[in-house]
């Protein structure tokens, strides 16, 4: 199992990378915990999660090859 992670904006500044993969992670809740452990500064900012380009609001199961995007608040326009 491989989960692909994309980071944007302020999240990418904190993680120092925009694109990497992680092995088995059960769901987005667990991924968030793992990320905040690796990058403690993520705890102080707000970010949403999209799985395969769809924003998710509740905890969502992850499957092999899922693309998980870490999205700080949008500020286009």
């Amino acid at each position, binding site marked *: 199992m491989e989960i692909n992670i*994309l980071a*944007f*904006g*302020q999240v990418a500044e904190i993680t120092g990378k925009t694109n990497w993969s992680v092995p088995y992670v059960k769901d987005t809740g667990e991924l968030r915990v793992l990320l905040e452990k690796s990058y403690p500064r993520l705890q102080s900012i707000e970010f949403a999660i*999209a799985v395969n*380009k769809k924003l998710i609001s509740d905890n969502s199961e992850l499957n092999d090859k899922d693309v998980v*995007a870490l*999205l*700080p*608040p*949008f*500020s*286009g*326009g």
Partner: protein
Amino acid sequence: MSEKKSHKVFVDGAISPAFIADSISKHSSKKNIGAHSLFLGQVRDDKIDGQNVIAIEYTAYREMAEEKFLEIREDAFESHSIICMHIYHSLGLVKAGEISLFVFTSAVHRKDAIDACEMIVERIKKEVPVWGKELMDNNNSQWKKND
């Protein structure tokens, strides 16, 4: 006559007034149009901690943004009697005073064009994964927040 085909939304750098004029010109052959509504977002030189914003650098999650633009487009045609609509958004560097967002709706009647344009602008601000990083004149920067 309605032109529902999609087009490239993201443009490199600022959107020029000449580009906007060209876009308006192209609609003179659609003679059932009675009203156009245009929204232009311009980069402000806001003062932050005594420093002026000199530019915004835009990045996006392109694949997701493009899907979202398409969804907004389809919803706009569904919910409003419009003849055509266009969205252009900058990526990369846009200086203060330059234009980074251009939304253009056209309809037989003004209310449809005006309402659709406003709805599209609101949805872009809220739903499209684009980020603006405000660059100051002392080389500091901060992430833009939408109101």
